[in-house]
């Protein structure tokens, strides 16, 4: 690991440090958490089945653009925005509705300022910890080279805001089975999901900038005073952005697991529908 020392006694090399605390715990947890999520989400998206039970729709599969009604645990055809699964869909790709939409939340999280920090540290080792040697590279370019795409984060944000409404709509439907109002564990799970997502999305740094942060004067006219108020609210969510990021990530996976297990008949949903 440590290759050489230089003036000041600092050792050079990947993960080289004089730190004596357990700085690697954070990055390790991030690798496990993010890695686990990506593996599960990819697996779940490939299934194309068991994403629907009663009125519950897994958030990984929402919105449903096309549906293959023959897949086990598929949603009824009426739920699809554009009808039945297209025949031109290449056969080497899985016929899964999740495939068509996961790119949007995926891009949002991948370009999020918090997640960038998390994976730059834990996956890319630039740096793995503070005052800890980074992975050696020829010439560091930060976010000016390929990673310049991170600057498009606000566009991913616009889609993410639309998803909050879509997922609240799903949550609303989750309270009606066959047109009858009721409450099940699944309804609550699917209601918490967009709520956590909203806490995460509306604490976004780009959002904070757009709603008011870009102004230099908050008191110069009527609209800037209003925007200052919104900016202050967003700033409160922004302070806990990391916590919102993890809570909403965990919950969206949990929602999928829950609907999947119900649909597979492994779990039974407690509900007022009996």
């Amino acid at each position, binding site marked *: 690991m440590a290759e050489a020392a230089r003036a000041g006694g600092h050792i050079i090399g990947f993960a080289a440090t004089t730190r004596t605390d357990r700085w690697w715990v954070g990055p390790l947890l991030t690798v496990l958490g993010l890695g686990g999520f990506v593996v599960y989400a990819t697996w779940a998206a490939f299934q194309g089945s068991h994403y629907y039970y009663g009125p519950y729709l897994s958030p990984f599969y929402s919105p449903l653009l096309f549906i293959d009604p023959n897949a086990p645990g598929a949603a009824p055809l009426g739920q699809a925005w554009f009808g039945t699964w297209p025949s031109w869909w290449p056969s080497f790709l899985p016929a899964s509705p999740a495939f068509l939409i996961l790119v949007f939340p995926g891009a949002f999280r991948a370009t999020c300022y918090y997640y960038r*920090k998390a994976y730059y540290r834990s996956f890319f080792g630039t740096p793995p910890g503070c005052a800890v040697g980074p992975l050696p590279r020829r010439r560091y370019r930060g976010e000016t080279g390929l990673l310049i795409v991170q600057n498009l984060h606000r566009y991913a944000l616009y889609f993410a805001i639309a998803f909050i409404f879509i997922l609240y709509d799903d949550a609303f439907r989750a309270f009606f089975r066959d047109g009858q109002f009721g409450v099940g564990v699944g309804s609550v799970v699917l209601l918490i999901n967009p709520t956590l997502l909203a806490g995460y999305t509306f604490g976004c*740094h780009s959002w904070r*900038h757009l709603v008011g942060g*870009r102004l230099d004067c908050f008191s110069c006219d009527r609209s800037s005073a209003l925007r200052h108020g919104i900016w202050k609210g967003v700033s409160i969510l*922004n302070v806990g952005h990391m916590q919102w990021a993890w809570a909403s990530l965990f919950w969206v996976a949990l929602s999928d697991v829950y609907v999947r297990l119900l649909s597979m008949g492994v779990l039974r949903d407690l509900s007022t529908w009996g």
Partner: protein
Amino acid sequence: MSERLFRIWRGTAAGGSFVEYRVDVDPGMVVLDVLHRIQARLANDLAIRWNCKAGKCGSCSMEINGRPRLACMTRMNQFGGAEMIAVQPMKTFPVVKDLVTDVSWNYEQNRRIPPFRPKPRPADGQYRMRQVDVDRVQEFRKCIECFLCQDVCHVLRDQSRKDAFVGPRLMIRLASLEMHPLDTEDRVPALREEFGSGLCNITRCCTEVCPEQIQITDNGIIPLKERVVDRYFDPLLGLVRKVFRRK
């Protein structure tokens, strides 16, 4: 009173090594007190820079057990009883002697920043600002120029990109000017090109070490990066600006 083992890097830019010192530590001492005791009793020629002993002058920056810190604000009782304490100069700046580094590079960067250019005065000759408009800037003015954030920033510390990035301390100085309600200078192009906002990968080490708890990344660098996005990476916003002829 208890005896503690210190490992202090001694030397100059030409080279040096760690030297061990055993020294008595009294309750309530900070690392700087112990260094002074070592200087008085065991190593009269130990070089340390310090001034206020109150965390306000920003002189006593060094690395204690590998973490960039102010020696005068690092209490001894946070270290375990038998733990050896390693003390080094900051890595990012050239060593002058022992724990003293030459931080003049930071002042050179500061001189490159276009200065405050205020709006013309109103008719009565009085500038007026409201508190809500200067809150953001005041956070940045808490900076004591300890340069611990510059020391820990991997772009300067490990990636040898002092040629392309001015570092977090200067980014918040830029933020304090850019967000100032009276300022009229436009530093956005320079932020991207000369000061290297894109080199920062927002890994937040600067914020973690700042003894003034300035939210360098969240309140300074990220908002500046977003201003760069406004100007260069947001075609939609550019269109809106054209249509409505707004800034």
